[in-house]
């Protein structure tokens, strides 16, 4: 199901004027920020389709910036997000593209902070719901509706078994999981939507596993910078 529950239909509480262009954009910005793990000091955003055509009138740019500042969808600071970004030392560039995209409301977000860099491609699919399609050019399919663990790891036999057994021993159920790799024996990325919140002990144990490079928690309900490097 594209829409998971009643609150993806009624809700979110948000700053107008468009759930697709404003609330969805804010959520995509927030997911990208959590993927980076901290406030970016440089952001490059490329808009596709309807996002590219109508972003200014909808405040899509302001909502994306708000999300990068970790604002929730109804944060009253969103209309003035540009100013807050400046105060936070965040440099933001917007681009539009006419290339075909997976969805009419698609954005590519590239973020930098010091040595850290990350990218994400996501779409706002209606009513404020979002779908992330790619993280650092790996294919994923996450909604942000559930706490999500994203693991960068080496493509080695046994990594996933040790990861899932560590998670299962913490008593948390994995609802959805997707693995993608750049090349055989290269870097791989696993995204897991969880039924429960990943606890610090589980994260600590996951980080010590062989071939695990780093872990991020994406959680729109709690919104923490999971400084897991």
């Amino acid at each position, binding site marked *: 199901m594209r829409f998971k529950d009643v609150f993806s*239909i*009624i809700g979110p*509480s948000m700053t*107008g004027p*468009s759930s697709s262009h404003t609330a969805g954009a804010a959520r995509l910005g927030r997911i990208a920020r959590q993927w980076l793990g901290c406030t970016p000091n440089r952001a490059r955003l490329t808009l596709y389709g309807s996002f590219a*055509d109508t972003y200014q009138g909808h405040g899509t740019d302001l909502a994306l910036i708000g999300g990068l500042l970790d604002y929730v969808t109804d944060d009253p600071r969103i209309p003035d997000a540009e100013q807050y970004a400046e105060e936070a030392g965040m440099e933001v560039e917007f681009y539009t593209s006419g290339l075909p995209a997976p*969805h009419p409301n698609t954005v590519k977000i590239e973020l930098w902070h010091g040595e850290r860099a990350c990218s994400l*491609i996501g779409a706002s699919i209606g009513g404020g719901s979002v779908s992330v399609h790619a993280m650092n050019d790996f294919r994923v399919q996450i909604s942000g509706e559930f706490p999500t663990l994203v693991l960068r790891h080496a493509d080695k036999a046994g990594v996933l078994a040790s990861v899932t057994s560590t998670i299962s021993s913490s008593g948390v159920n994995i609802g959805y999981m997707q693995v993608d790799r750049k090349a055989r024996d290269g870097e791989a990325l696993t995204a897991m939507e969880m039924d429960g919140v990943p606890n610090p002990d589980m994260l600590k144990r996951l980080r010590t596993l062989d071939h695990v490079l780093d872990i991020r928690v994406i959680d729109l309900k709690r919104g923490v910078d999971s400084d897991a490097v």
Partner: protein
Amino acid sequence: MRFKHLHELNTICTAESKTIAQLMIEEQVQETNTPEADVVQQMSEYYQVMKEAVRKGLTEDTTSRSGLTGGDGKKMAEYIRKGETCSGDASALAMAYALCVSEVNASMGRIVATPTAGSCGIIPGVFISSQERFGWTDEHLVNGLFCAGAIGYVIANNSFISGAEGGCQAEVGSAIGMAAGAMVELRGGTPEQVVHAVGLALKNTLGLICDPVAGLVEIPCIVRNGLGAVTALAAADMALAGVRSAIPSDEVIDVMLEVGSAMPSRHRETAQGGLAQTPTGRKMMQKLAKPKAKRAEPETETQGSNTTDDSNTTVSETDTDSQG
């Protein structure tokens, strides 16, 4: 969720003697593993946000950032006070409140997406005006929101709820169907009558294009919310009177998918067609034009395949930009 279609909602609720709201609450609790009290609390908070938006629209300045819209909700309320309505006070008040909420939305105020922000006026317009008229408790209206949510869940997962995907029929149309069905349940109608109300309402918005002037959620969105609230009340009345949707409501939802998919992109929230491209619409757009973002440099992008399948990542590029 135990249902994907409206006929399943009707069957389960009828067999188990439940309202659609009760079923939706139970399913939400099961699906998200959240206590019922928390689920109901969340919805109650949303209802308070809706009421606050009506209040704000009636009492505060709702001039939008573009300056194109604002103040029409207040005008309607004043007009009703004079006792001169053509459509009847109940309809007019629902319309006034719907305009208020949509104006708050356009001015970047706080609203609840029901199901979207572009259609956020219809459910509060119908619900809050009806609450005043019938003296209902907040709790009753919160149940109504769960019923509306169940209907929207079916529409969203079988068709669409965003203007960019399916035109305004998907946005304002869905909201009208949700409000009409919920209104039937709030008035004590059966689940079957609820389902008919949804079909009756949706049929009347099929083909409605999404053509926001200058790309803003203002013209014609705000007015469509006002009129949508009246359509919802009327569809609820038809269903409560025993009128049936001759084409089953689930099939009407499928038609919305068919029609929306066939719509050219210029009629799907791109501001490239419809009212947005009338001589006046174009003038408004030119007047509001701001410096555009740079076009992404072609050399940094690789051609994606022309697909709309969400599972494919077609926007990709080789990173020529310096990574930190």
